[in-house]
């Protein structure tokens, strides 16, 4: 009996989730008989089963809803918004009863006579029944279910046109998690085996191990896929939500959704469900204006909220766009100053785009006075922290009066993340790649860029900063923050991992940087969970357990309490917003902006950049008619971006030369430039193609005409003239 009830509950909740969306669709397309039949069938199935299970209350509500649907099918009734509203109410009651059943295994008590009467009223006259009339009628009929039993004859439960054989199975999620865990183990065992067997191609096992390896990878991918669900499952409640908002506020809103089949890990889908609902509600409540206001502004009286999802390099991007009132950056600035989030001068100097991001600040949510804004920021801080908790980013753009776009970028899965493995003294840690902006290597020659304020601050340490281009980057000594014995402060060379959480940017000092790996995230046990500096743990290829750091938590324990405004004050100097493009264009990318030497602004996608270095001019050597630098135990050819200026001529002695290091398989190359300016997120839309080799074209980036550099060209150039014995060249110059 319990099993039957359980099956009934799972099946019904699946069906009901779809039902909301179907019914709203029906409202827009009342003559769609296929849709109507689907809805009818779902309700009919629920009614049929609950009769069998003896669920009286559920049966009577389902019965009435079914009867109304039957009238709709028969064409006796037109699917007007009021009819649809009543059917939706019935579905709400059904959901409520099912939820009660799930908790207590018995039907919860409740009085549905008003609802049933309202539903039944549709079959007596075509006019919408008034609420007062409905209540009056309930007293008249004590058993409404029997009263409408006459409609039973008209029911045709076999009006099926679907009937596709069900090719899927229901599998317990715990089972999938276990499978995932086992596959993770298999991967480790495979890696160990590869290590033992080495790279001996003549080994007896070589072919078998290769085979095993391939199968393991395939298996891992397949298991990952079993956990994927289309993002549409998180959207199924939204049509209903938007409809209710529109009806309640007298607005006309259409909801457009595209990319609903984009797949995400179920864990991620669960995590974004609430933030998504919140943002769509915001768009409907506060974004879209009333029809008369819209007409006065020369817009269509019906507002549109558009949801768009697509995949982009291991991430899923969700855009929520509305063509409503938008957010007024001037009002946001005023509010931010009032709230004490930022100083007036700073707020005024800030670009509109940066200013808009204040709506994500916690202090902003209590907004009440500025009417054009009120509510717009409500809970947005919660939305941002929810998105960031799963390694995502959120960004808002808006043009006052025209609309607003919220751009969310989230990882495909939480189970496997890309992480940088770093060393702190003798311990190893993993840092999620999503939080990392760049890596900076501090050597004896660049030590001067590390500044110390002898404040004796948190943890009794003096505050350290690094002069990163135009900004002062607060530094956290990871060893100190985690109280690991040892010190980097006097070490000759160390690394800074530049992290960003929210608007806060800071550098983590680590002793060594190993490599980037795809790691399987495992939860830490309950004894370690309260420590906010960890996001989980993982097992590396050699079997050792490594803790995954949560950069936000680390900054909290280290006492780096930068408020967002302060961080932005330091970093926003070169970022100016361009006019908001009306149409979607090229994908949003992280771009490195720099001055190649001619004074013009240059850009490369950050994905093509391995590292950024400051090389002292003295260390630049010349051999085989090219410039080289000894770099991490190998020789790195340096290529000046502008050929008409010699490398040394550009700078005097005692100075450093910014170098962009790029890799491509075997080939490494240092692109010598004049000045590194910024890293920003923007789209590359080439306005002018270039004739010049090494330049892809010109685009407007951060408000300036920018030459987009073709890294592949320089790498190819470097490959052609690469000397076969680089070590000989070293001896020659040394």
């Amino acid at each position: 009996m319990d099993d039957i009830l359980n099956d009934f509950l799972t099946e019904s909740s699946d069906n009901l989730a779809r039902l909301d969306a179907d019914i709203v669709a029906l409202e827009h397309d009342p003559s769609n008989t296929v849709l109507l039949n689907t809805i009818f069938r779902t309700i009919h199935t629920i009614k049929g089963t609950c009769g069998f299970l003896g669920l009286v209350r559920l049966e009577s509500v389902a019965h009435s809803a079914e009867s109304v649907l039957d009238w709709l099918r028969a064409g006796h009734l037109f699917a007007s918004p009021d009819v649809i509203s009543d059917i939706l109410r019935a579905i709400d009651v059904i959901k409520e009863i099912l939820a009660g059943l799930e908790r207590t295994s018995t039907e919860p008590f409740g009085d549905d006579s008003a609802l049933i009467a309202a539903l039944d009223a549709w079959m007596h006259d075509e006019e919408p029944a008034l609420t007062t009339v409905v209540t009056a009628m309930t007293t008249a009929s004590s058993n409404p279910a029997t009263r409408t039993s006459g409609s039973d004859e008209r029911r045709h439960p076999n009006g099926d046109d679907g009937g596709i054989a069900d090719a899927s199975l229901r599998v317990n999620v715990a089972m999938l998690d276990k499978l995932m865990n086992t596959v993770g183990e298999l991967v480790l065992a495979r890696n160990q085996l590869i290590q033992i067997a080495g790279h001996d191609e003549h080994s007896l096992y070589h072919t078998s191990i290769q085979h095993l390896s391939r199968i393991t990878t395939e298996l891992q991918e397949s298991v990952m896929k079993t956990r994927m669900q289309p993002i549409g499952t998180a959207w199924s409640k939204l049509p209903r939500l938007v409809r209710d908002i529109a009806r309640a506020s007298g607005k006309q809103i259409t909801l457009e959704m595209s990319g609903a089949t984009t797949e995400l890990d179920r864990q991620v889908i669960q995590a974004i469900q609430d933030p998504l609902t919140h943002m769509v509600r915001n768009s409907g409540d506060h974004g879209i204006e009333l029809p008369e206001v819209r007409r006065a502004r020369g817009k269509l009286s019906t507002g549109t909220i558009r949801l768009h999802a697509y995949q982009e390099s291991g991430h899923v991007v969700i855009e929520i766009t509305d063509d409503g009132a938008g957010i007024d950056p001037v009002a946001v600035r005023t509010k931010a100053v009032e709230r004490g989030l930022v100083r007036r001068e700073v707020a005024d100097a800030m670009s509109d785009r940066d200013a808009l991001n204040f709506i994500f600040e916690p202090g902003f949510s209590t907004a009440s006075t500025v009417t054009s804004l009120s509510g717009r920021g409500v809970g947005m801080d919660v939305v941002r922290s929810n998105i960031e908790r799963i390694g995502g980013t959120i960004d808002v753009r808006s043009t006052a009066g025209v609309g607003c776009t919220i751009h969310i970028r989230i990882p495909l899965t939480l189970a496997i993340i890309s992480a940088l493995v770093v060393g702190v003294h003798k311990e190893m840690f993993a840092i999620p790649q999503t939080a990392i902006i760049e890596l900076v290597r501090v050597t004896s020659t660049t030590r001067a860029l590390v500044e110390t304020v002898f404040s004796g601050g948190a943890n009794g340490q003096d505050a350290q900063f690094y002069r990163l281009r135009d900004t002062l980057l607060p530094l956290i000594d990871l060893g100190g923050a985690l109280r690991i014995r040892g010190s980097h402060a006097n070490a000759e060379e160390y690394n800074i991992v530049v992290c960003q959480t929210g608007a806060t940017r800071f550098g983590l000092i680590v002793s060594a940087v190993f490599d980037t790996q795809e790691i399987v995230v495992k939860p830490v046990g309950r004894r370690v969970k309260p420590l906010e500096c960890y996001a989980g743990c993982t097992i590396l290829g050699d079997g050792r357990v490594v803790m995954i750091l949560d950069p936000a938590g680390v900054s909290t324990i280290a006492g780096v309490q930068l408020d967002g405004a302060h961080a932005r004050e330091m970093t926003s100097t070169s970022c100016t917003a361009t006019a908001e493009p009306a149409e979607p264009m090229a994908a949003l990318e992280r771009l490195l902006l720099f001055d190649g030497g001619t004074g013009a602004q240059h850009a490369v996608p950050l994905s093509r950049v391995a590292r950024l270095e400051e090389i002292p001019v003295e260390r630049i050597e010349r051999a085989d008619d090219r410039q080289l630098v000894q770099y991490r135990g190998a020789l790195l050819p340096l290529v000046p971006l502008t050929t008409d200026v010699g490398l040394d001529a550009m700078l005097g002695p005692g100075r450093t030369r910014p170098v962009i290091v790029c890799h491509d398989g075997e080939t490494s190359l240092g692109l010598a430039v004049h000045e590194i300016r910024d890293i920003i997120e923007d789209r590359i839309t080439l306005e002018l193609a270039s004739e010049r080799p090494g330049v892809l074209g010109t685009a407007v980036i951060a408000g300036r005409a920018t030459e987009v550099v073709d890294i592949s060209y320089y790498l190819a150039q470097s490959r052609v003239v690469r000397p076969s014995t680089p070590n000989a060249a070293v001896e020659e110059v040394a």
Partner: protein
Amino acid sequence: MSVDHVGFVTFRMARQWFGIPVASVQEVLVPQRVTRIPLAPPDVMGFLNLRGQIVTMVDLSVRLGCMRERPWDRLSAPLMPPELLGMDVVLRDGGELFALPVDDVGDVVTVLSSAVDEVPVTLDPRWKDMCAGIVRRDTDVLMLLDPERMVSDSVMHS
């Protein structure tokens, strides 16, 4: 005790023998490499990898305020001869695995519920917190431990 007789896995720390119910013990391990967790509570020695599962290592001697004969931490486990390190008892509680480093593991003993005495009131409060009862044996006393309270986070630190 409601059941007539219960099996206990016995282990020793310094001179004292302890018992935990067989049902909560998963296995006994030779020492493994342990990853230290900075900022963790003092009795949490770190994590170890048991066939792909994360196991939290809890040092009972810290919780009880007593000594172990072999107090070396497991950070250097692969470098030392195992006989110097003792053994690890792995127990399961609340769906999680915990490893307890001990000096020696003894037999599984069956204890009749009638043979279990109340914990003496004079016992150190840290011990009393964790003990479910004591059993008198021919030459010594066996302290029966409550697995849940051995690993819970409400630790009374010395």
